[in-house]
């Protein structure tokens, strides 16, 4: 197990490297001049040239790339072109809010998603099954921001139970949770739709296996077969696919942060785009890249815990 963990961690380093390179390509190689972006279209040529020099944009591309990588390795994300504040500090300030939101969403997704998925599979082609399928199709189609707006209208405006904007203080858990609940529920419901669907089809696939028939033939109780034989095996793809969807959920968290005006990476990124603050924008992209790679690593490790066969491959 230990050697597998080490091997898997080492494997993610080149992936991380390539993903960060992609960020560089998007931000610097695609057309568009960051200096013009920061100063606006009407800036004088001299001013643009001076800023280009200051931002190191006149250096050859390979040198810019090496500097970019070097700075990231040192944890130096540069200073915002607009405010002058160090970006790393800003990122560290908002990162806990995004992590809290995403993990709460993932947790709710598994928590609410697995039971109806099991029920739908067991009661296949009944009313319960149809209802569950319609619900998950709805959840897979609704844009995150629209679900957020509907929840605000219902639970903040119609029944004023939860605050609409901002995030709570971490030192006050109750207040923090009150602020987290609606945005988290938005992400959680999106994830629930997906997990329900995956659980249903995974269980339907597992139920056909020979060992399940054997278990029934041995005269085991339905309940025992379902929980000990079917669910344990059906869980493997659910965890794997759920993990893939968690990456999608990181994308949706951007929308949720915007709708709920909640501090976080997504809000920081969109704010940076609107202010044409390209240093901050590029840094947030790097952080997202790191988050996605780490998340994939985490999923693989959990996966190997559930399914011991994997680590021997």
């Amino acid at each position, binding site marked *: 197990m230990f050697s597998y963990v080490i091997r898997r961690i080492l494997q993610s380093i080149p992936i991380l490297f390539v993903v960060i390179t992609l960020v560089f390509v*998007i*931000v610097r190689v695609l057309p568009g001049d960051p200096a013009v972006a920061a100063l606006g279209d009407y800036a004088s040529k001299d001013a643009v040239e001076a800023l280009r020099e200051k931002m190191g944009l006149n250096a050859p591309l390979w040198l810019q790339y090496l500097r970019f990588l070097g700075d990231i390795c040192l944890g130096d994300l540069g200073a915002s072109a607009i405010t002058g504040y160090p970006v790393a500090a800003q990122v560290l300030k908002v990162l806990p809010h995004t992590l809290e939101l995403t993990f709460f969403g993932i947790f709710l997704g598994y928590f609410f998603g697995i039971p109806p998925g099991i029920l739908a599979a067991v009661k296949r082609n009944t009313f319960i099954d149809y209802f569950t399928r319609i619900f998950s*199709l*709805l959840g897979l189609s*609704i*844009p995150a921001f629209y679900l957020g*707006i509907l929840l605000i209208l219902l639970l903040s405006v119609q029944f004023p139970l939860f605050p609409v904007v901002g995030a709570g203080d971490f030192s006050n858990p109750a207040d923090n949770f009150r602020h987290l609940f609606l945005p988290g529920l938005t992400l959680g419901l999106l994830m629930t739709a997906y997990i329900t669907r995956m659980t249903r089809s995974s269980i339907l696939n597992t139920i056909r296996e020979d060992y399940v028939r054997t278990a029934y033939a041995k005269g085991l109780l339905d309940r025992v077969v379902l929980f000990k034989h079917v669910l344990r095996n059906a869980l493997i793809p659910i965890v794997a696919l759920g993990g893939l969807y968690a990456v999608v959920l990181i994308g949706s968290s951007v929308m949720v942060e915007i*709708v709920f005006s909640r501090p976080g990476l997504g809000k920081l990124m969109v704010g940076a785009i609107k202010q044409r603050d390209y240093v901050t924008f590029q840094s947030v992209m790097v952080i997202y890249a790191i988050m996605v*790679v780490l998340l*994939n690593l985490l999923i693989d490790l959990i996966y190997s815990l559930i399914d011991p066969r994997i680590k021997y491959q």
Partner: protein
Amino acid sequence: MKQEVLGQPVSRKMLAAFLKNRTALIGGIVAVLIVLVSILAPLLAPYDPLAQDLPCRLSASDLNHRLGTDDFGRDVLSRIIWGSRVSLIIGACSVAFGMLTGTILGMVAGYYRGKVETTIMRFIDVLMCFPDLILAVAVTAVLGANLVNLIFTIGLVMTPRFARLAHGALLTIRETEYVTAAQAIGVRIPRILRKHIFPNISGELLVAGTLWVGEAIRLEANLAFIGLGVQPPTPTWGNMTREGVDVLINAPWISIYAGLSILITVLAFNMLGDGVRDMIDPRLRGE
């Protein structure tokens, strides 16, 4: 070729399966209706979507304005009808673009194998590493938000999916006898890809395409909601939802109806795509 040895032709079986699948049928009908609405927008819309009527701004639904008016007194219903155009154009064109580039990449990778394959598929893996939305936001932010760039961006996000699909499908087909036979008589590679391989994977690609039009439309709406969509005053559903949020307490209907249009459209395409997938797959067709 189309005729099976026994029983009905496959195409008729598929049609029967499609008609029997109520989800797909409803999805298909709604999708066709939405396309019709967007084509007939000039005839259907009761008002000019850009015409402002400031005295009756933010008025709720009444006989003159069925879905109310927005902050500038523009008719919400007319704007929703016209807004369908941007959604559908971007949805269809970006999927077509992604299908074209993705299929070419996937087929080339799958046919040549070796280093070409490794390079292309690793590139695809990296693109897939990012959440769709974040990749789309980044590329749009750099390129600038307009119709053509949005089609390019969303097409780029769709490319890896088609590439993987084409690649996977090709791996099984390239081992078949007819491909070997074509190679043996010296057919040139582009022709093999076009005439012998593409027709065999086109069905699968088309299904995926239907399924992902909904996803592309949703992505466009997300970008528009952030402010990275087709710029105002052009009505798009994402723009309208965003503008509605500013007056959410006093005039919730703007966001509700605009968002509902997105939901219904994406849902219709997803239902259609799901149904078409079941229809193509003989195991799910119940044979």
